[in-house]
């Protein structure tokens, strides 16, 4: 039996690896790139033959409203919009979970602490049901696109046919690896088997990442088309179309955002289980799980604004029109909502950490400091969402002498926001540091020096962030304004990394002041609702910003190349768009709660005395 299982695993691994290697051969551009080294050896005769066989592609079609099929009573744009968004929410979740499950499993292996292994298993268990929902919604999206936007689908699939086929194959590979990874969890335990299991986790992540990168290429092609001429005629180089201007910025942003999002959803799961727990042990377990999920979400949330800023800066660099539409034009107010929601994420993550101080009596030493953190966090948050275009009453307009506010105006542009978000991140990290120290006292001889160094580091870093933000942000060329955000980020990262390193050494062998009680009654229900808020804010935020990213194409399917002439080509009003996203968020959260509920009924058993016929022995 065991031999048979090993064969199944080896077979699945072989298929997955084969699919990964097969991928380049399915994408013509990959061939071209790989063959570059041999290019000199290719004779002119071969070129002639290749030219003769070269496929000629049609330009982007010029459509009329009649080219878009419709079903009476169905708004095709909303159907595609919601299907795509729901698919993306679930997709982000199921791609993220294996990333941190892999890390948690590895931590468990390194520390030989089985609690980590159990938690990793529970995380992947939640994502399994979500995985099938992702696939179903992906199918719904593909069908709706083919049904309602057939010419667009045909145009894109002509260019990306190779990568679309590879995507389908990779999906098989991912499913195979995922199911073996999940169902084989308890079987592949101990010694070499555990290493095989961990390798499966790595493979699962590799296939998942490739799937996302391929889908990202199709999306970003519509925003920054490459490999086609001005009329949309495809040149035949698929790699050029995939490796378009915005592909990598989106890849990076989505990868980090997925982890933060996945963390927040499993955090909500832990909160759900915590609130419905009936025993002390269950409360303790889910309290611990919620803490870890929140840690994952915050750890990924900290670098996320930088990845987002990079993506936006690249959009601006690609097209001034797109950049201004995004930040200063018609979508500017959605950016304010985005800022508010990001602030809500930081507030709820911090609140959860502060509430967590109640787990240990030792934390009383630090509770008075939280109000100072709150002042900075809320202050930075207010700057973060101050709009550039103020909504003024006529009296205010008259009083100010125009729409420009001498103090609030400068707070409305990016240098102020970058400074604010760096402070927001640093002080959130400080909340985490206080939490980490809650039940311990450092015993090393250099503890006072270490603390003094950390204070000096924070002070110097914050001064540096202010100088970079104010001087380079307001008194230099725009290129330096944008570039100054990089040393700001670096300052924040240096502070965080250096502080963590100092803390790790300083608290080695630290004395426990008071034990940490997971799940005790002082861990309030409020803190669990903060975890829910985190998940809902993330979902809403992703939906809104996803709409903005897609919406800046305005009346184009593929910007400046393939015009949208459907009856829905207009950019909807902000209120309408926000309503669609809000409905989507409610549908998604309902489906997520359904997934959570499924996880509770799978372990329930009903007594069936008298129902089944007694079997004679």
């Amino acid at each position, binding site marked *: 039996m065991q031999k048979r299982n090993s064969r199944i695993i080896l077979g699945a691994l072989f298929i997955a690896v084969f699919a990964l290697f097969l991928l380049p051969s399915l994408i013509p551009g990959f061939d071209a790139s790989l063959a570059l080294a041999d290019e000199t050896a290719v004779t002119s005769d071969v070129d002639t033959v290749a030219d003769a066989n070269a496929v000629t592609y049609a330009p982007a079609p010029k459509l009329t409203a009649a080219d878009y099929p419709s079903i009476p009573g169905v708004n095709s744009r909303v159907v595609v919009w919601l299907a795509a968004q729901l698919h993306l929410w679930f997709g982000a979740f199921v791609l993220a979970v294996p990333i941190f499950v892999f890390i948690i499993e590895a931590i468990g292996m390194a520390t030989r602490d089985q609690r980590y292994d159990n938690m990793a298993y529970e995380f992947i268990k939640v994502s399994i049901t979500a995985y099938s929902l992702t696939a179903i919604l992906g199918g719904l999206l593909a069908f709706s696109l083919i049904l309602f936007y057939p010419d667009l689908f045909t145009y894109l699939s002509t260019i990306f046919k190779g990568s679309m086929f590879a995507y389908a194959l990779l999906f098989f590979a991912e499913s195979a690896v995922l199911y073996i990874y999940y169902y084989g969890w308890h079987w592949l335990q101990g010694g070499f088997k555990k290493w095989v299991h961990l390798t499966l986790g790595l493979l699962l992540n590799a296939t998942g990442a490739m799937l996302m990168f391929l889908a990202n290429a199709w999306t970003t092609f519509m925003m920054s088309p490459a490999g086609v001429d001005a009329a949309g005629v495809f040149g035949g180089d698929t790699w050029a179309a995939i490796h378009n201007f915005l592909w990598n910025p989106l890849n990076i942003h989505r990868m980090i955002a997925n982890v933060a999002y996945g963390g927040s959803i499993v955090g909500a799961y832990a909160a759900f289980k915590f609130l419905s727990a009936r025993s002390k042990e269950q409360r303790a377990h889910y309290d611990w799980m919620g803490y870890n999920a929140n840690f994952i979400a915050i750890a990924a949330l900290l670098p996320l604004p930088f990845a987002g800023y990079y993506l936006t800066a690249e959009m601006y660099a690609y097209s001034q029109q797109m950049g201004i539409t995004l930040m200063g034009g018609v979508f500017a107010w959605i950016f304010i909502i985005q800022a*508010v929601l990001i602030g809500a994420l930081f*507030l709820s993550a911090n*609140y959860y950490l502060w509430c967590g101080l109640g787990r240990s009596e030792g934390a009383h030493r630090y509770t008075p400091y939280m109000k100072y953190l709150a002042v900075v966090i*809320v202050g930075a948050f207010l700057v973060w969402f101050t709009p550039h275009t103020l909504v003024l*009453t006529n009296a205010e307009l008259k009083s100010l002498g125009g*729409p420009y*506010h001498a*103090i609030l105006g400068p707070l409305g542009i990016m240098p102020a926001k970058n400074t604010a978000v760096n402070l927001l991140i640093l002080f959130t990290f400080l909340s985490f540091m206080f939490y980490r120290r809650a039940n311990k006292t450092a015993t090393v001889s250099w503890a006072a020096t270490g603390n003094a160094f950390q204070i000096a580091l924070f002070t110097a870093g914050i001064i540096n962030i202010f100088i970079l933000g104010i001087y380079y942000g307001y008194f230099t060329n725009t290129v330096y304004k944008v570039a100054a955000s990089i040393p700001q980020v670096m300052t924040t990262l240096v502070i965080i990394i250096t502080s963590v390193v100092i803390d790790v050494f300083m608290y080695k062998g630290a004395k426990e002041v008071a034990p940490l009680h997971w799940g005790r009654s002082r861990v309030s229900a409020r803190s669990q609702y903060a975890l829910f808020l985190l998940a809902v804010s993330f979902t809403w935020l992703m939906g809104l910003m996803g709409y903005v990213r897609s919406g800046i194409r305005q009346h184009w399917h593929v910007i400046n190349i393939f015009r949208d002439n459907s009856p829905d080509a207009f950019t909807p009003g902000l209120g309408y768009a926000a309503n669609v996203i809000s409905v989507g968020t409610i549908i998604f959260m309902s489906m997520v709660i359904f997934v959570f509920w499924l996880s509770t009924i799978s372990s329930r058993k009903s007594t069936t005395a008298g129902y089944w016929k007694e079997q004679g022995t």
Partner: protein
Amino acid sequence: MTKKRRIPRLLQLVLVVLGIYLGFVLTFDVILGQVIPKSLLTMYMFFVIAGVLMVFTFTEESAQELIGPIKALVEDPSKKMVRNVVFVIVPLLAGVYTYASLMPSFEAPVELRTIHPAPPSSVKAFGKRFDLATLENPYRKFEKEDPDKFHKLVKQGGEIYIQNCQYCHGDRLDGKGPYAAGLNPTPLNFQDVGTIAQLQESFVFWRIATGGPGLPAEAAPWISSMPIWQDFLSEDEIWKVILFLYEYTGRQPRSWEHE
């Protein structure tokens, strides 16, 4: 030993929120002389209250102390009189607020105008089409190549500005020209860090050449008084004025190239 009297938590919360509110009004409206817009103050106060509530409720003791008087007000039979008074006053206050918010007024409704509408990808002016993604100021190169020539061009731009633009945008480029008070929206303040410093020269060229009527639909309400300057100035003159705008204000046009 006498026990130190503490202000009740609920009162503390109310005082902190009120203090911050008054702090905003006092700082902006009185000390700085720049009113804080009501819309923004509402947003600020919403999150200030959220932050204050976070601080007051993150420990169980503090949360109980905060909720205690409210619970007592609702549940304690001895507080019947206070309860009745509160239950009358609170709905009345809500009613007054609702009435004040919904009462019709003669004031024009607030308009959310996009100050920086997105430019089209190309624009038609002077009988030809300009691609705004690649359009550059033909004189910008002289800033490094021939500074004397550059300064002459800036000077010429300044003269054009004084003859044509300062009536509205002001001789200090701060949007406070002699006619500015009669216009709504008021002319652009080029000294503001949020205006030309944020823009590429091609954007400024588009706005000057096509003026208010050239604004895209999304820039509604379309009420800009900016004339269509391509009817009065040459292409060269517009580029020179743009040089002057940046030079006088000490701003640099948005660009993706390092100096």
